[in-house]
C-alpha cells in the first residue's frame, strides 16, 4: 500500500458511478463504497477542462483521478460535468457587447452561456489572462471570471470591441 501512496490513482470508468443526491449535492459510489458528498477539482483548469479530474472527499483527500469524462457512463458524465460547471464558475462569453474604459475601471458588458453579465476590471494587464491560443480569461475585481474560448470565432461586433484591448 505504501507504494500506492505516492502514485496517482486512476479511477477506472467502470468502478465509479456519480449522481446527484436529493439535496442537490454531488455524490457517488467508488469501488463499491458510497460517498454522500464528493468534490471535483480540475488538475489543468486551462488546458484540459474535461480530463484529469481529481475526485476528492469533502475533507479534500484525493480518491482518484478521472482521466476523461467521456469514458464515464452517461449519467455519471452528465453529473460530473454539471458539478464542474458549479465549482468552476466560468461562464463562456458568446458575445462582447462593449468594452469601455470609464475613469480607471474597464467595464465589460457580456453575453454568456449562463446569461448576461458585466465585469469590472481595475486594469487589463492584471485581469486578462491569455492561457494560450485564442483563449482569454477575464477576471472581475471581485474574483468573478468569464472565459472567451476563442475570440477569433466571435461575431464581428465582438471582435471589433476586442481589437484595441488584445
Amino acid at each position: 500500500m505504501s507504494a500506492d501512496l505516492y502514485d496517482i490513482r486512476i479511477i477506472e470508468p467502470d468502478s465509479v458511478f456519480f449522481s446527484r443526491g436529493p439535496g442537490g449535492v454531488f455524490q457517488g459510489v467508488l469501488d463499491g463504497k458510497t460517498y454522500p458528498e464528493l468534490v471535483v477539482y480540475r488538475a489543468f483548469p486551462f488546458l484540459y477542462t474535461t480530463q484529469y479530474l481529481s475526485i476528492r472527499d469533502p475533507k479534500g483527500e484525493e480518491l482518484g483521478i478521472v482521466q476523461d469524462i467521456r469514458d464515464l457512463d452517461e449519467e455519471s458524465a452528465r453529473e460530473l460535468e454539471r458539478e464542474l460547471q458549479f465549482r468552476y464558475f466560468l461562464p463562456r462569453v458568446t458575445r462582447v457587447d462593449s468594452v469601455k474604459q470609464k475613469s480607471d475601471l474597464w467595464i465589460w458588458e457580456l453575453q454568456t452561456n449562463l446569461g448576461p453579465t458585466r465585469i469590472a476590471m481595475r486594469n487589463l494587464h492584471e485581469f486578462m489572462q491569455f492561457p494560450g491560443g485564442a483563449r482569454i480569461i477575464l477576471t472581475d475585481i471581485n474574483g468573478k471570471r468569464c472565459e472567451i474560448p476563442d475570440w477569433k470565432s466571435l461575431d464581428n461586433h465582438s471582435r471589433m470591441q476586442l481589437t484595441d484591448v488584445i
Partner: protein
Amino acid sequence: MPIPSKLPEPVRARMPGEPLFSVKTDLMPDGRFGELWFAVTEQEVALWGADGVSIFRLGVSELTEARAANGIGGGTLLADTETGPVVVARYTAALSPAFGFAAKLLTAMAKGEERPVVSEKEFPKYCPNCGNPLTEGSQSCPICKSKGKALVRMLRYAKPYKSQMAVAIVLLMVTAVVEMVPPYLTKVLIDDVLTPKNMGSALLWLVVGLGSTSLVMSVMQTVRGLIGVWVGSKLMGDLRNDIYSALMRLSLAFFDRRQTSQFVGRVNSDSEAMRQFMTDGVIWVSGETLRVIAIFVIMFGLDWKLTLFALIPMPFMVVVSLTLWPKIGRRWYQQWRSIFRLNVLVGDSLQGIRVVKAFGQEKTEMSRYSEANRELVRNNIRIEGLWQGMFPLFSFVAGIGTLLIWYNGGNSVIRGDLQLGVLMALISYLGMLFGPLQWISQMINWASHAISSADRVFEIMDTPSDVPDARNPQPIGTLRGDVSFERVSYGYEKHHPVLKDINLQVKAGEMIGLVGHSGAGKSTFINLICRFYDTDEGRIRIDGTDLRSISQTDLRKQIGVVLQETFLFDGTIAENIAYSKPDATPLEIMRAAKIANAHDFIVRLPDGYDTRVGERGHRLSGGEKQRVSIARAIIHDPRILILDEATASVDTETERQIQEAISRLVKGRTTFAIAHRLSTLRNADRLVVLDKGKIVEVGTHEELLAVEGGAYRKLVDAQKELSKIKGVEGG
C-alpha cells in the same frame, strides 16, 4: 443584529419572521445568472425570488451544520441535515464573504452556540450611483468621480514650479507675437517698396527689422528651452520619488500577488511620459494656442472674408481628433502592456538565470523573448503608424484652406480689389498654422500617453495599504515581550484560511519553537507577528496592546528577524550590520559581529568590515551571510526575535557556529523559531506543533516526545528515519 441588504417588499411580506440575515445572491440554483434573495430567520433558511416566490426553504431545526463550499469564481452554500447535505444557494465569488458568514451563522444557530456578528466587510461594496464595484478600502467610486481627475492631479505636480512655468509661457507669448512680425514686414515690403519700386532707406530698415526679430526669437527660444529642461527634470524627480514611496508603503500582500520586476519599468517610463506631457505638453499647448489666436486675429484684420475660407477644414479636423482620441489612448495602453510583458519576461529569466543555464534553456528563453518582442514591434508600428498617418492627413486638409485662399485671393488681386502683399501675408500666416496643427496631433499623442501612465501611477498611489497604521497609535516604549494570540485566523486568499483559530500565550523571554510540515502555517504565524499581514479574525496582542494599534515603526523597532533567505543590501558589511541603526559606532558593530560569530571571518577578509557585499560586491557564503544577518538582528536589539529556518542551508559545522550565536542572541528575548531540523529547537522552552493551520500540540520536547502517537513524535521519528538513511546525524 443589523440587516445590511434590504429585502424587497413582496419577500418581506411572506416571510414567517424577522430576518436575522439576508443577502441578494447573483446565481440561480441551476448556475445561471439571476437575482435571488437569501434570508435567514429564527425558524428557517430560505431562498426567494424578488417577486416573493419561494424557491427553497429549510427549517433551522433540521440543520446540523452549514458550509460555504467555495469553488473557483463562485461557490455553494451547503447545509448538512440528518438525511445528508443539501444545496441551499449558489453565488459568484463577489459574495463569498457574505455566504461564508451565512454558513457560520447557520452553524452557530444549529448548534446553539454564540452567534457571530455581521460586519460591513462581509458584503461586496457597490457604488450607490452607478452600481459598479468599489475597490476595497475606498469609498469614492472611480467611475463617478470626475473624468479629468487624473489630469488635474497630474498637473498638481507642476504647481511648485508655477513661477518658472509662467515665465516660460510669457516668453512663449512674446515669441508668438514677435513671430507675427516677419510676414507683416514682408507685406509692407511687397506693397510699399517692391511693387511701387520705391528705392530708399525703407528696404534696408525692413531687412534689419526682419533680422532682429529672428534674433530675438532665437534668444527667447533658448531661454524657454532651458526653463523647460530644468522644470522637467525636477518634476520627473518628484514623480519618481512619489511612486517609489508609494511602493514602499504598500504591504507585503500587494507584492506577493505581483512580479516585482514590473515596477522597475513603471517608476521610470510612466514618470517620463507624465513629465513629457506636463512640461513640453503644457508649455507647448498654451504657447501654440496663443499663436493660433494671434494668427487669426491678424488674418481677420487683413481680410476677414478670405480668412473664413481657411476655417472651412477646421470642423473636420476637430471631429477626427475627437474620434481618434480614445483609440490612441487604447493603443498606447496596448503598447505599454507589451513592454510590460517584455520587462516581466526579462526580469524573470535574469533572476532565474542559474536555472535557465542549468537546464540549458537559453534557446527557449530567447524564443519566448522574441515572441514578446515581435508583439511589441507590432504594437509600436500600430501606434506610431496611426499618428504618422494623422499628421499628413491634417496637413492635407488644412492645405485645402490655402488652396481656397489662393484661388479667391488671386481673383481679387487680378480684379485689383486686393493688394498682392496682403495675399502673400495671408498665405504665410496660414503656413504658420501648420506648426500648431502638427502639435495638435502630437498633443493628442502625448496627452493620452501621459493619462494612461498617470492612471497606472495613481493606481499604485491609491492602493490602500492592507495593514494601515493606527490613527492614534499607542506609545509602547520598550516592550517586555509578552505575546498573545487570541482566536487568530488568517488566509492569503480570504476564505482559504492558512491559520485557523490560533490561541497561544507567550511569556516575555520565552523561546517558542514552531514545528510542523511545510504548509502547516509556520511562516504565516511569524508574518502575522511582524504584522506583514493583518489577521482576518481574532487579534494578536503584545504586552496586552493590540498589534493594530501600535505604529508599525515602533513595532518593527522591537522585532528582529533572521530569515532563511538572507538578503544583504548593496553596501559594506558594516553598513549591512548597522542597517537598523545607522548611527552605530564601529565598536558596536564589531561587538554585534563578535556575538554572531562573524567577527573573525570578517576581519580576515581583505577589506574587513568595509567589504562590499550585495549584488555587485564580494560573494559571501551562505553561512557567512547568515551570521552577518544575525549581527544585524543583534545590533537592532529587539525584544521579540524571529528565526525563520535560520540554519537550513548550511553545513553542520557552520550550523554549530550559528546555533552558538543564536543561543547568545535569544537570551532574555521572546523568540519564535522555525527550524526544519528539530534538533535545533532543543533549547526552546515550548514547542508548538502546527498542522493544517491549527495548533495540535504544545509542550516541551520531552513532554511531546512522551505522547504516544503524537504529531511531534511522528515528526521526530520520521526525521530519525531520514537521518539513518543519510547516515549523517542523529535526531
